[in-house]
């Protein structure tokens, strides 16, 4: 067993609002191994993005109130802002959902892609630009040397996301966090960007954390997957096992709510009933129980912890932990 590259232990991040304290991340633990691709899945507002931002310590105005983020043996939550800057963009790079707004409109793309090199390696403008153009070419931007002189608005959405990826990769970071990298793009472009991310993962050996609400994206990309609900991890395991035999009713319902080509027989799609919970005032016990069709009396009383269920998976559910298989009407 290799040493994990990144280890998140019992992370808690809160937001103070007018109406109360929002526990956006509520005791999340997982690890990321070198070179792997890990998927984090959940509905919007389940805390997956805040988890990623907390790793980068960019969660403001939220506050990390507990837990640790150990990266290469150092706890990032204990780093000074100065030390943190040495990690951001150099060791851990991040790309965001909307490539339209994530690039600064008033600077040339080449300049922006080269910026991490000037910042972290202290390279001069010329050397960093050569490297930036090289990287733009490797992420599939044609005639990169010319395009580097263009401004972001002169690129299409897909091309801009390629620019974002190039910008993240210039310093060859150990981890790339991709927060909904394809959500804002057309379907055909989505596939191209996912191809690129897969390619990057193989070629650079960059460990990738892929955050998405789209189960289809996870299926094709990730070796392991984490499912989050209401700020907590409800299920974790190898992607194939989780998809084949979900061990948490939430995962189970998520899989039933999307069309699948490999469905054994024609099953009607079933949306998950009810609304995502109010993070300020979580239900007692398991946060999912009001929407859960498998709930038992204990679910509204005690909060289940993430425990091994089966050989390879872990789930936070009283029902499956007691050995019951999830089978639905």
């Amino acid at each position, binding site marked *: 067993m290799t040493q994990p590259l990144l280890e998140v232990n019992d992370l808690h991040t809160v937001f103070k609002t007018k109406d109360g304290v929002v526990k956006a991340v509520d005791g999340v633990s997982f690890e990321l191994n070198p070179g792997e691709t890990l998927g984090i899945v959940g509905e919007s507002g389940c805390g997956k993005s805040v988890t990623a931002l907390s790793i*980068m310590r960019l969660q403001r105005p939220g506050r990390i109130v507990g837990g640790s983020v150990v990266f290469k043996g150092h706890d990032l939550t204990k780093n000074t802002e100065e030390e943190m*800057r040495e990690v*951001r963009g150099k060791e851990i790079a991040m790309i965001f959902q909307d490539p339209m*707004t994530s690039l600064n409109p008033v600077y040339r793309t080449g300049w922006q892609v080269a910026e991490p090199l000037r*910042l972290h390696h202290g390279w001069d403008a010329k050397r960093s630009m050569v490297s930036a153009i090289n990287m733009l070419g490797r992420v599939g931007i044609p005639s990169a040397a010319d395009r580097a002189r263009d401004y972001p608005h002169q690129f299409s959405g897909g091309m801009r996301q390629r620019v*974002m990826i190039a910008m993240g990769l210039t310093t060859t970071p150990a981890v790339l966090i991709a927060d909904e990298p394809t959500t804002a793009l057309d379907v055909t472009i989505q596939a191209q960007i996912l191809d690129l991310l897969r390619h990057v993962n193989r070629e650079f050996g960059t460990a990738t954390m892929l955050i998405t609400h789209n189960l289809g994206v996870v299926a094709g990309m990730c070796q392991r997957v984490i499912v989050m609900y209401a700020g907590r991890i409800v299920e974790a395991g190898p992607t194939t096992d989780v998809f084949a035999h979900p061990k948490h009713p939430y995962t189970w319902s998520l899989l039933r709510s999307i069309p699948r080509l490999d469905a054994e027989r024609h099953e009607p799609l079933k949306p998950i009933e009810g609304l995502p919970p109010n993070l300020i005032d979580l239900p007692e016990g398991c946060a999912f129980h009001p929407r859960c069709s498998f709930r038992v009396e204990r679910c509204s009383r005690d909060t289940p912890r993430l425990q091994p269920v089966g050989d390879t998976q872990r789930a936070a559910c009283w029902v499956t932990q007691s050995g019951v298989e999830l089978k639905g009407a």
Partner: protein
Amino acid sequence: MLAKYVARRFLASIVVVLGVTALTLALMKTTSGSYVPGIDLNPALRPEDIARLRADLGLDRPGWQWYATWIWGVLHGDFGHSMIDGSTVWSHVADRLPNTIELTGTAILIGVLIAIPVGVIGALRHGTKTDHTMTVVSVAGFAVPQFWMGLILILVFSVTLEQHGLPWLPSSGAYSAVNGGDFFDRLEHLVLPATVLSFFYISTWSRFIRSSMLEVLSQDYIRTARAKGMSERRVVYLHGLRNALIPLITLIGLELPGLVSGGLVVEVVFGWPGIGKLAFERALQYDYTTVMGVTFFATLLVVAGNLLADLLYGVLDPRIRYG
């Protein structure tokens, strides 16, 4: 594309300049009656002299004829002679304009230099005591009548200090009449009027920068910049400020006509021999040619300011296309 845009704007500007000057002449014509400029200077004038004067000045002709003659002159670079003192309008403008540029230029410069950091600090610390204090000061800055602020400054820094035998600041003019005129003397005279003018600019612009900075700081590309590991200073000043300043350019461009009109009240209060004060005095005396000349330049400045602001906008914001 750009050349075409400028050309179109230029043509539109000509219409504006013609419209404003024609309106000015029409106003003077309809309100002056049979008044002849300069007539009060010599009470011994006989009616036939006055009639001759009127004919000399072309005032007996219909307005449109007078206007056509004037335009013809302007096209040949001739703005005519003042109807009061006979010297060329151009010499008056050339005499006064540098003073005005000195005053307004200083005020705009001070305004920008103070407003930008104040606005940025307000945005970075928004919701804190510092921010609230600056908000209160700038809201007050909008509400103070400039002429009254000028009077109060004169009362405090010239009159009261002088009464107590303390070093005081001059309250009027651009330089001392006696032994004056060197750099420090001019600077002394500049302090009070420039303070009044720049206080107004600071109030307006700092609020503007604050809100535009707040908006910029919430943008995704600022998060990207932070995720790249930049220092907060670099994030704010390199990635934020450049974007936040773009709209300010328009505001400052629109302030260019202030060279003539914005500073007028301040020039009158502080007896500053600028072009606004010239226009004010000559309009009171129905000095047609001088008023027309100054109106022409004032309108030209407005138009030029607008155009300049638009063009600068394009330089600073690569997304802008002219068409």
